[in-house]
């Protein structure tokens, strides 16, 4: 039968041995991480973004690399999935994007701070995470297909397929925050649509639609696309 001193030896040998292996693996991990996380791209801007991320305790609601709290979305692939344009508008006024839904704190970020946070999210999204988060494998076609591959994908300008679909659906693909845009061309004239896109508040005071600050190229492209949805 095991004696007390044998039990003591078991404890010391197991602890020392596995601590040694752990330290050795740690050294190897630190050696490999720069390449796996593209440390060359870890610019000052990314570090500033991380500082904002920590100062605001974003992990208190969100997860990143799956770590944090479970009150708000996982953000590892936020940059890849949403795109820069969408994130910019969202971070300006988070509650405008999801009126009446679960609230994110309005931080009143400056444009520079928003760029920093986005740079941080972009860098996070490029880390080799061994496949996390995995793409949904049981998704029906409507969820699985990225919006750009939807019904009238060929005609969708990039801005529409990255930003507008966050809230609006076309052909059943896209968000449900704002109204579906099928047949929008039969309800609005092009000048009215352009006015709506440039300054939603002037057309419909109190609307939940955020001011997108579209460039004139994007305005042309989006309004031309919308006019095809008869």
């Amino acid at each position, binding site marked *: 039968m095991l004696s*007390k001193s044998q039990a003591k030896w078991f404890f010391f040998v197991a602890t020392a041995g596995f601590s040694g292996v752990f330290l050795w693996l740690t050294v190897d991990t630190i050696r490999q*991480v720069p390449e796996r996380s593209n440390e060359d791209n870890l610019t000052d801007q990314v570090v500033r973004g991380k500082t904002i991320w920590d100062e605001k305790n974003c992990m208190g609601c969100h997860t990143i690399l799956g770590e944090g709290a479970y009150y708000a979305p996982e953000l590892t692939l936020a940059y890849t999935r949403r795109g820069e344009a969408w994130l910019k508008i969202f971070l300006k006024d988070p509650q405008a994007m999801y009126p009446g839904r679960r609230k994110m704190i309005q931080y009143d970020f400056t444009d520079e701070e928003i760029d920093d946070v986005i740079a941080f999210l972009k860098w996070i999204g490029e880390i080799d995470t061994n496949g996390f*988060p995995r793409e949904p494998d049981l998704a029906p076609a409507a969820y699985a297909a990225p919006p750009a591959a939807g019904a009238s994908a060929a005609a969708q300008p990039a801005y529409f397929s990255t930003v507008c679909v966050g809230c609006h659906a076309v052909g059943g693909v896209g968000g449900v925050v704002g109204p579906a845009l099928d047949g929008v061309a039969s309800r609005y004239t092009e000048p009215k649509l352009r006015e709506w896109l440039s300054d939603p508040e002037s057309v419909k005071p109190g609307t939940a639609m955020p001011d997108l600050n579209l460039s004139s190229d994007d305005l042309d492209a989006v309004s031309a696309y919308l006019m095809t949805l008869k």
Partner: protein
Amino acid sequence: MLKYQSWKVAWAFFATCMLLLSLQIIYGFIMGFAHMGYDVLHDWIPFNVARATHTNLLVVWLLAGFMGSAYYIIPEESDNELWSLPLAWVQWASLVLVGVVAVIGFHFGWWEGRKFLEIPRPLDYLVVINVLAFLLNIGMTVFTGRRYTTTAITLLAGLVAAALLYLPGMITFDSQVIDSYFRWWVVHLWVEGVWELVMGAILSYLLIKLSGVDREIIEKWLYVIVGLTFLSGILGTGHHYYWIGAPEYWLAVGGFFSALEPLAFLGMALYVVTMARRGGRRHDNSVALYWSVGCGIMSFVGAGFLGFAHTLPQVNIWTHGTLVTAMHGHLAFWGAYAMPNFAMIAYALPEMTGRKLFSGWMPEWAFWLSNIGMICMTGAFAVAGITQVYLERRVGMDFLDVQDAVAVHFFGLILAACLFTIGIGLFIWNFIQYGAVIKRDVEPMREQSPDAAVAK
């Protein structure tokens, strides 16, 4: 009756536990209601403030409980008053001060934003000084004491290692990957490593006292169990390294060793149940034995079994970062770290006050209601978590739509939490009934007072 002057400090720590736990529960309710859709406090206490407060209050009250337990156990095991009683009081006061300042600071955005280690840097230094003072006091008490026991040494080793492992969490890194890597050195190696030493030592002490089994046998198995803990727990840290940008071999290493982690907890459960059954001498404080045995069993279910439920990489890739983690977290911390503190308090109070208020409905219902409530809360998190994994991660539904779909389970969570809170409320009421021991006189060493003899 009060055998050691030092026990007064232990009582102050236990009272602090009760207070901080009450606050922790309030912040838990705030989050439960927010998840249900009633985030009415959003403008004053947004979710990230409630979350940081909830988890840090937990850490502080558990540490306060461990310290109180040490101030209770070490003098008796070493048969020696604390090396410096004034230092112990200063250490208690400064811990409370740091805790209060940290919690208030969170409400004004004074924090670090790193999960579980949100306490801002200047306070970190105070924590270090505080813990050094604590360890100095406990260490000197052991070394100037009349005897060294395995239980005392294990407790001391656990506390020293916990203090050392706090340090990697204080280094800052520009890379989120390395930052996260070393953050787990603190968080994982605390809760799945050295804290288990503390828990094991507390349970050993209680079993020696409550069951009457020979100290040599209990302490031998203590070595085996903490050996198993480190054998599995150290490399088990790898289950936090699957998806953070660390190399792929962590999937194999973390998966294999964390699959062994339940063995340590199963060992602990079997050990506690066996020793409790074997005891020839039945101590009449049955509620303390309930908490001790319950601790062994619930730590296996919560930390061991539910941890295993989502620790394998092929499962974890879907469940990582969902409410499934909250499911495991609640029962694990309850079973492994809250319950040994309750066991210790339930055992120590009658010893310190000389009043035998452990029989009767109140302490027993405190045990049953809090445990049933916590099991039901775990169930509510489990249903919400599994639903979230399927709808969001596998089917690809939008995050907020899924949260709406699982909101009803948070109603269940809140009902269960009410049951839990009633149990805790009864425990605290019982604690108050025992009364303060601060003004109590110390008995002459190893002499029984007449009324204590009558009580026996």
